């Protein structure tokens, strides 16, 4: 089996395996394990893992100020910069906060995305030319996915709170504004499923993406898709005892866990997969969420020449000192009327300086700068 198939199938089998485990477990009356132990364990792993990983990053210093500058720099006062340029090349803390906010909330860099293609072009002597066009589908898919996920998460607060806060009700009605089907269909759930499916489909159908994708890329997508599907099934088609579910959820957050009867296995599958997702988070690429805040090419102000950046492990290096240099070339420098620190003693004037020819070492056609 080839690399791509193997990685996809491993992820698929893993997710299906988790579903089966939860189903069999519930059938064997292990509700406490999947409804209580797994969520607690996941929460613990999520929080501790996240702290551990972020601290692990923070332990390594940022020796150099290396932001990617994506707009005109702040140099001469009369050169006007647009607000975009100020955020893309942020010289002040305020602009830096703007840059990060735009990156985190609006996926600024992904919004820039282009697609480059080699087009057949009979007018061109080589028969083809490169074109680069704006390509926003990935941005759209990613932003839809993340925001839908956020809304879905927040909506779930209604299970964990009593009374339910006002904003959750508001979100609820906004999400269900289309008012079709009974119960009312939430847009966010559909968008989440659609966007995740798109992200998976591009991995499978775009040859370059299929080539680079690992099991670790398919697994979270398949997991989230399965979570969305189980959630949707539960809400619209195979309804479970919602009061009991809320009792269970409230029990979890108030640390009085209980497993009320009458909850369907579908629910346990759902909550188990969510638990796995949270537990998996700190040990996977999902860490990109906190990572983007710490990325040295994005989270540093571009005041490089204005304020000195300190490297905590900066150490002295051996370099060729001027004294050594002059000692070696003194006679030749004097002869060429280049000023020197020390004049050579007169008796040495006759001596020839062993000065290798300047350009002999390299090909003369081209040179570097």
């Amino acid at each position, binding site marked *: 089996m080839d690399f791509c198939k193997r990685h996809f199938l491993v992820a698929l089998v893993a997710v299906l395996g988790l579903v089966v485990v939860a189903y069999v477990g519930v059938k064997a009356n292990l509700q406490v394990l999947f409804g209580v132990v797994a969520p607690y364990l996941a929460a613990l792993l999520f929080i501790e893992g996240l702290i551990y990983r972020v601290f692990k990053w923070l332990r390594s210093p940022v020796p150099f100020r290396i932001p990617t500058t994506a707009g005109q720099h702040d140099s001469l006062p009369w050169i006007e910069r647009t607000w975009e340029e100020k955020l893309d090349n942020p010289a002040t803390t305020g602009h830096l906060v703007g840059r990060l906010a735009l990156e985190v909330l609006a996926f600024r860099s992904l919004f820039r995305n282009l697609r480059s293609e080699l087009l057949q072009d009979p007018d061109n002597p080589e028969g083809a030319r490169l074109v680069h066009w704006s390509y926003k589908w990935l941005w759209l898919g990613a932003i839809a996915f993340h925001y839908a996920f956020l809304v879905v998460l927040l909506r779930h607060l209604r299970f964990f709170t009593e009374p339910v806060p006002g904003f959750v009700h508001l979100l609820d009605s906004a999400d269900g504004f289309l008012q079709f089907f009974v119960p009312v269909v939430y847009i966010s759930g559909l968008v989440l499923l659609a966007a995740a499916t798109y992200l998976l489909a591009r991995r499978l159908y775009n040859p370059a993406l299929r080539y680079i994708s690992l099991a670790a890329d398919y697994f979270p997508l398949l997991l989230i898709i399965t979570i969305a599907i189980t959630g949707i099934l539960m809400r619209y088609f195979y309804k479970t005892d919602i009061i009991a579910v809320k009792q269970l959820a409230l029990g979890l957050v108030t640390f009085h866990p209980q497993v009320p009867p009458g909850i369907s296995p579908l629910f346990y599958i759902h909550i188990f997969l969510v638990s796995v997702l949270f537990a998996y988070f700190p040990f996977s690429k999902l860490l990109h969420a906190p*990572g983007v805040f710490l990325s040295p090419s994005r989270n540093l102000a571009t005041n490089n020449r204005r304020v000195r950046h300190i490297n905590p492990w900066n150490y002295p290096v051996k370099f060729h000192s001027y004294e050594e240099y002059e000692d070696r070339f003194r006679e030749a420098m004097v002869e060429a009327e280049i000023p020197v620190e020390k004049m050579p003693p007169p008796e040495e004037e006759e001596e020839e300086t062993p000065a290798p020819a300047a350009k002999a070492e390299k090909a003369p056609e081209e*040179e570097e700068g």
Partner: protein
Amino acid sequence: MSKPPKPAELLPGISYQPPAQGWMDLKPEFRPGTFCNAAQPKWMEWIGYPHVRSWKVTDDDWQLPPDWKETILEGLQDRLNRFRSLKLFFDICVRCGACADKCHFFLGTGDPKNMPVLRAELMRSVYRRYFKTAGRLLGEIAGARDLTEDVLKEWFYYLYQCTECRRCSLFCPYGIDMAEMTILGRELLSSVGINIEWTLASVAQCYDKGSHIGATPQAMKDMIDFFAEENERVTGIYTPVHYNRKGAEILFVAPSGDYFADPGTFTFMGYLLLFTYLDLDWTLSTYAGEGGNFGYFMSHEMGKRLNAKIYAEAKRLGVKWILGGECGHMWRIINQYMDTWNGPADFLEVPVSPITGTKFENAASTKMVHISEFTADLIHHGKLKLDPSRNAHIKLTFHDSCNTSRGMGIFEEPRYIIRNVVPEGNFVDMPPNTIRERTFCCGSGSGFNADEYLETRLRGGLPRANAVRHVHEKYGVNHLACICAIDRAVLPTLLNYWVPAVEVTGVSEMVGNALVFEGETERTTDLRDRPLLGFEEAEEGEEAE
């Protein structure tokens, strides 16, 4: 040297379809024209680099030291501890593929391992295998693989197929920067004695003598004095040059490419004309005679060792501040590394233009100003008398160099200068997706100017050349200006291959052409001895005499 295929043969052969075989099973093929030669032992000895030996890239046995694997893994651990960037960039990539078609080497070769994401995976897979539990336990299915000699050869092949241009980092949603991984990966290769000839020769020469080209002080003076004579011949103005002059106000540091070979030399003539016009109190240094820094293409440490000379020399000469010439990676280093490496430069003053009085607050700490900032400020204050019609024979486009674009952001200054020194309508930008922060690399940056590497360089330069061709055909562009000496060294070859009839120039050369001196002889040619518009016949007449 192998001859590269012709454009019409090369281009149709590029396909972005990945091969059927998985990337972990594919080994690079060291075909002539697609790799850089191994460094000769003598250069390594000059700079005290470890594991000196004579070897060839095409050898089966690279004569690695017996403990090479431990050296690499310990080096990797050490760098993970010292660079948050590396740790983070290894951990957070989601392989979304946004970077894939942003790399000029991918666009020019179609080799999937030139997609930045996969180039990073070459190193990341080893990181997972030795530093991550999942990788240790699950191996390949967790994206991990053993560090073998083949993997090391692959690192060499692809890390020297990245020009550290950072275009991928611009499009990455998390700012993952391949350049950072390339720099650190090359450090690891160096630690087991794997270096490339072109870069290491330049580094050793620069370390020893003062410039990449290995010019002795007297040779450097010879070359630059010649430009003063050339200026006098063409313009009637003698442009005095000062070397190692103590007490000068400004130390000027330029890349050696600008005094070594055409067309960079014309840029240097432009610098000299400008300084003479302003009656500037300046000096060059033969010791800090190199603004460029090929050390940075080997390791952070070697970059620092070469760069140290600039502040040391500024201190010895007692100058007030430093002015820097047109060079790409030199300016990434000045902007993002120099002060951290070798500062604080508290013996210098915040740069003030002696002509306009402008205080360059943006350089308050490094005390170093870019020649384009300096010139743009002069023009803005009306201090230069310029005659753009002397550049009327030039239809210009501007190439943003990767380093000054994504490691600094100097976009407007050179364009402002250009608009003032060429007639209106004679400057056109290339398509927006190929300039400014989205600019494409020349394909030969980060130490790849070697002849033996020509085919890969021409492939890597395809996206740049393709955009030049567009403005050449559409607007009749016949010159490309840049503020980078590597560009001036390599773009003529590249354009000659893909878009013949477009020449390469520096921005300061354009300034030199347009600058009107009092008492100058009437100019009939530009700095390259080509007749100005309206003087073509006069030239011919002279030749007839």
